[in-house]
């Protein structure tokens, strides 16, 4: 996945699409519990807003948190039960029947992409909408993004649009020093102050 932060307008469509697609039943439970439960509702992806500068030389940036689907996922190596695993396609998933909720993976993840889901009683995280990929669809967040800030494709195919973009050098990864080799790439916002 590539996230072009120049195109993100911070509208939250991706966050909402993900909740509706992947955490709908939990969402209904939280609604039944009321506003405080909604305030604490965990999201697989979210957008942070950063305000910088002094009037009138200011800028607003958005950053996107989402599981980076690392090639070397620290969450997988620390999992004592094998609940966290990587598929042959490189997607990092949690087998909820094996998860014991020890939260080692939550601690190990440098990106804060995992959380305990009290409704499922398991760790939950982004799956790249694996169930949609199987049907030839894009992840829900990618499909809905009004400005096309999120791009999805096959990095193993050198001719895919996403491979070309990543290989062009326009993208970067977060916390490269961790050696995790993320599969989520970012195009950083150009500073325009």
């Amino acid at each position, binding site marked *: 996945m590539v996230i072009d932060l120049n195109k993100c307008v911070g509208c939250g469509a991706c966050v909402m699409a993900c909740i*509706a697609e992947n955490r709908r039943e939990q969402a209904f439970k939280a609604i039944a519990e009321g506003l405080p439960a909604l305030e604490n509702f965990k999201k697989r992806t979210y957008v942070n807003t950063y305000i910088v500068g002094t009037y009138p030389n*200011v800028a607003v940036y958005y950053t996107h948190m989402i599981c980076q689907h690392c090639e070397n996922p620290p969450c997988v190596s620390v999992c004592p039960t094998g609940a966290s695993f990587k598929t042959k396609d490189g997607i990092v998933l949690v087998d909820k029947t094996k998860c014991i909720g020890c939260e080692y993976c939550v601690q190990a993840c440098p990106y804060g992409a995992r959380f305990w889901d009290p409704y499922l009683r398991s760790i939950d995280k982004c799956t790249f909408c694996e169930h949609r990929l199987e049907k030839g669809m894009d992840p829900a967040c990618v499909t*809905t993004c*009004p400005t096309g800030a999120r791009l999805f494709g096959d990095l193993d195919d050198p001719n895919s649009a996403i491979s070309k973009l990543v290989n062009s050098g326009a993208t970067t990864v977060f916390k490269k020093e961790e050696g995790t080799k993320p599969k989520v790439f970012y195009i950083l916002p150009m500073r325009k102050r």
Partner: protein
Amino acid sequence: MHDCPAACQLLARVRDGKIEKIEGNPKGPTNLGKICARGQSALFRTYNPDRLKKPLIRNDPGQRGSFAGFTEASWDQALDAVASHLKKLISEGRIKEVAMIGGWAVCAFHEPLLKAFAETIGTPNAIGIPGGACYFPKAFGWSTAIGVGAHSQILTDYENIKYLVVIRRNFFGSISVVHGTRAGQKIGNYKLVVVDPRFSETAAKADLWLPIRPGTDLAFLLALINVVISEGLYDTDFLRKFTNAPMLVADDGSPLTAGTDAAGKIKYLVWDLAQNKAVKHEEAILPALEGEFTVGDKKAKPVFQLLKEKVADYTPEWAEKITGIPAATIKQVGIEFGKTRPAAVDTGWHDPKYKNSVMTWRAAAILNALVGGLIKDGITITGVGSTATPPSDVKEESVMRMWGTKQGVAMASKGFTFQGFLDAIEKGDPYKISTVFLFSTNLVMTGPDSTRWKNAFKKLEKVIALDIYPIDTVLYADIILPEHTFLEKDDLLFGMTYAPVVGFHTRVAAVQPLYDTRHIIDIVVGIVKRLGEDYYNKFWVNYAKELRAADPQAMGAKLKDAYEKEGVRGMRKVQASARNLDVAKLESEGLIVVKDAVTLRKEMIQKTLNGQLLTPSGRIEIFSFALNNIKAKKGYQPYWDPIVAWAEPEVYGKADGKTTFYVVYGRVPTMTHTATADEPFLSVLTPEFKRMAWINRSVAESLGIKKGDKIKLISVETGASVEAVAFPTDLIREDTIWVSSDFGHKSEALHFTKFGVPYHTLTGVKADPVAGGIMSQEVVVRVEKA
């Protein structure tokens, strides 16, 4: 199709009778398969436990304003109660005391129903609020130049634009996601200049942010016109062929007209440089744009010459003093605008904000015309715009029109001045309004001087509200009639909005209604039917008339028959057949495009060249015949200058940025008016700082105001005050405070709303002198710690 003013085309995924997910309809030309957070969350609206689930009746008007004292009723009981009240008014000769007020949902989709209902029972008092409170001043400004101008009628050509100036709007952070989608996908393809007193979501993506003094965008645009003309950067060919810039105007200000054609379009003379004489525009070979000519015994100049003379004083240095934007920056933008093609000032969406709103958008249109950025490039006309007719006049005896006329509103005949209902309810001026139907409107929050609306509603004999949520205004009703959500109903056929194509779309029920709710059409028909056979039959003819049927009698009979057999779905079939649309395709895909973008644009270009636009002359009017008529009736004022002129907003020069401040409001990308404020997830997805009152950081420091402090905004004019939470920020001018207008609900029946600033406590009851808009930013406040 979403129940939102943006009318995005959607698909709902349903399993076992329950909605799982909403997606953008990939075949939809409005939103191109994309949807925002509001669209994504819409399934939670249908399942929101706060919804109105059954008709409710309350007999104690003393409990208005709270959710107490209601008892659940059957539909028969509720509709009987409404009908018996109407029968009483009819028999007592008081039916004109009924007012029907529609919010955006009705205005966007069911205004014909509202009007047919009113016409049938015999009251002239039916109007949608958005005319005065949202779009008409802006729409009228554009339409003085190109005949149309509502948000549904014109569209910036975001796909091809290279230079875009945005004033008074925030398309990346508002309900106009359909524009934001197009503009956003092309970020980087065009230079974006955002003119806004606060750093909006759109400003965050701009190449240049110009924090302008509130209400002075007109001066900025006039200076750009000055630069484009003085630097010789205008498109003479376009001005000659597409516009009435060559039209000769005598030195007494009257255009040299030459009768009208068969279609009623005004013909006029231009000076033909090739033949060296005055001829009709269409007969000229090379119409003069500049100079002075003698025609008969009159001296006359082309409109362009007059424009050039008029804007000569509107220099960047002049505009700097008014707008606060440096002259050098204005000049730079003017030159870039003039040299880059296509360039445009954006269409805008909502603007009833200032006394000069109409003239501001007229200036935008003229600036666009100078560089050929109208119809051909830049700002295009949508399918809805291509088939539009001018808004019709309301009845002379309507409260809205009488009030507007009394205020001196030039366009009072259009009846958008719903503000007039206040005097009618409170004082019986010009006559008493005793009964109000509220069609999904939230006037006690969004009506100007919202406190006055609350008190007015308490005085009424009967209040009937239709809605899906018990929003603040619904709590003032005696009878509540709950509607289906959009996912639970079939709907009529609607023209496709915000797309550069001609097409139609509709709603097809995704699930069965969850509760004992009804379609708005079923509710109105249910009431009318109870009034008797005569009313019932008359209603269908009126409905057909309001739906613009060529033969209302025949169409009315067909609609009635279809409704009786198959309900709303049957009506839609009749509508679709009348337009030769494939009903099966419409019902399976939700939409049908009948004319593509390329064809539509070609057609509109040809119409302009042929003089067939909706303007009085049929061309793009650099000299507006509509405004010239106003001038003839009311004398000259810059607010309706037939060409263009600087006209001050009321607040001009009234805030010092130390103790007094301008107030501007805006939207956030997670809310659609106040209607989504109770959507469980949207409520918590909205960052807290967007619910707060933004105040410049250094100003806040000097006032001792810190983030999270409770502050009071007090209107200098009326003394009305509102409490807000302060957000000191560098994202706003020193003399300006920003609030979102979407929050601040008090209804105890809503469980997912959060704090906000109920802004309209501060606005006064006003009307701009041309369009009658509510002048919603003509507010200056003092700030105090609460």
